[in-house]
């Protein structure tokens, strides 16, 4: 074998080994995305997707503003007061804005803001996991609430100036406090001693004030809204058949949030299929505020607040905005 042939063979062997090495490296590299072709998943998406469509005739509200709270990375809690100030909470921050979205004040807390509420004197109540704090309108601390368990998860607050209700999703109970933060009583939702009480499968447990000194509690595991007097006695409520249909509440933890309009009608938001709807106080479906197509994700925590003009304020964590909806044509169909 000549020297030249040897060289050629060596080069050929080297090239072959190099190609093998390249092939192995290519196998280790990330692959391009391949779409799913599983018919079971496709069928599921088609079935749930059908419920995302809403008859435009049923949409009673339109979006009139979308405010981005300055400096917030996320927005998960909202409240408003009689002076049209908007309180937006996300992470450990809270931003107070005027109705145009201009920042008035900013507050930073030691824990994440889990819920917000105001009272008729425009005092602010802030839920911070297992703590509740109240602040004057100028931002000065009024009080830190006492009597809350270390394991508590406060997911909702409602205040009328005399008492404050706090929903604890971890303990599945609602606590009533005096305005200065002293625990007065606990509502467990049990109609009798052995009753099941509130069913809270996930950290969504909302309360809001009714008309005439009543408290509404969302019982999400049962797709039910229950009305109590201030002493914790169950006085009424309604439940909806669970289901994906527009007039029902979808999934196991819905409605995730609720609020009351001035005429007593109830506005609800859901997760799983992100939609906001209106019911009469007796539970009759009235119409839609925002259809699923208005949201970038269907798995969102859409906190709600209603201002003095019955405008509905909604947190949109995906867009980091407070979205505001107003009635298109008012009809008196909220009253029964």
């Amino acid at each position, binding site marked *: 074998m000549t020297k030249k042939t040897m060289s050629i063979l060596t080069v050929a062997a080297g090239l072959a080994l190099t190609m093998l090495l390249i092939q192995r490296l290519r196998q280790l590299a990330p692959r391009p995305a391949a*779409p799913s072709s599983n018919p*079971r998943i496709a069928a599921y998406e088609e079935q749930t997707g059908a419920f995302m469509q809403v008859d435009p005739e049923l949409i009673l509200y339109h979006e009139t503003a979308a405010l981005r709270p300055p400096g917030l990375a996320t927005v998960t809690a909202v409240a408003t007061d009689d002076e049209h100030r908007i309180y937006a909470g996300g992470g450990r921050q809270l931003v107070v804005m005027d109705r145009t979205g201009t920042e008035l004040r900013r507050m930073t807390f030691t824990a994440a803001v889990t819920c917000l509420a105001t009272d008729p004197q425009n005092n602010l109540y802030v839920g911070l996991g297992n703590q509740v704090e109240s602040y004057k309108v100028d931002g000065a601390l009024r009080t830190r609430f006492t009597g809350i368990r270390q394991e508590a998860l406060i997911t909702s607050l409602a205040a009328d100036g005399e008492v404050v209700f706090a929903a604890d999703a971890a303990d599945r109970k609602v606590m009533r406090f005096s305005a200065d933060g002293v625990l007065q009583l606990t509502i467990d939702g049990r109609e009798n001693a052995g009753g099941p009480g509130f069913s809270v499968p996930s950290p969504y447990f909302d309360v809001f004030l009714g008309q005439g000194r009543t408290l509404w509690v969302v019982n999400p595991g*049962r797709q039910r809204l229950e009305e109590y007097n201030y002493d914790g006695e169950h006085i009424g409520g309604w439940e909806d058949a669970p289901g994906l249909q527009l007039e029902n509440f979808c999934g196991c933890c819905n409605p995730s949030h609720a609020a009351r309009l001035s005429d007593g009608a109830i506005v609800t938001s859901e997760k799983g299929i992100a939609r906001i709807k209106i019911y009469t106080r007796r539970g009759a479906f009235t119409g839609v505020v925002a259809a699923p197509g208005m949201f970038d994700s269907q798995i969102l925590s859409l906190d709600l607040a209603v201002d003095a003009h019955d405008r509905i304020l909604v947190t949109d964590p995906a867009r980091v905005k407070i979205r505001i909806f107003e009635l298109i044509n008012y009809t008196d169909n909220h009253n029964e």
Partner: protein
Amino acid sequence: MTQASTTPAQPEKLTRSGFLRRWLGGLSLALVAGLAGATSWKSKRKTQVWQLDPHKCVHCGNCEHACVLKPSAVKAVHAYVLCGYCKLCGGYHHPQAKNLDTAAESQLCPTGAIKRTFIEDPFYEYTIIEEKCIGCGVCVKGCSQFGNGSLFLQVRHDRCVNCNDCAIARVCPVQAFRLVPADEPYLLKGV
């Protein structure tokens, strides 16, 4: 004291055989490095197994068909600590179920691989029957959308043959598959 030479250094003339020698020398070094790397990877590979990161998974359904095993080595698993034990379970009930019962037409799982057990009103426990699970992930999709995401998919290493080049990883749209230490083969939720 040595006088520095003023004669400029002449560049060495590159002959054809010299060029070939240099080129082959470089190639040999690259090959040695490559082989060392491949050997090291192979030795490391023996102590690693494929697993699916449930936080990246988008429950596309590819795990059911792409695995070389039939049924797939990927199965649904349940993080009880995350579960709400609901009567209405997005992972168990068909989205169009008329009743929240255990009738076949009410169930989402195509093979009836989820067992529902009444605990106390209104709580139910959901258990995966591994032998029936085909890894399609439709329960995971339902649980993620409407529930707490307590159902998720994992490669079961009592079944997985641990291919060098995992067939599911190759088609995973979000690169959720990765090699993990064989002595910690699961990526669990809720722990």
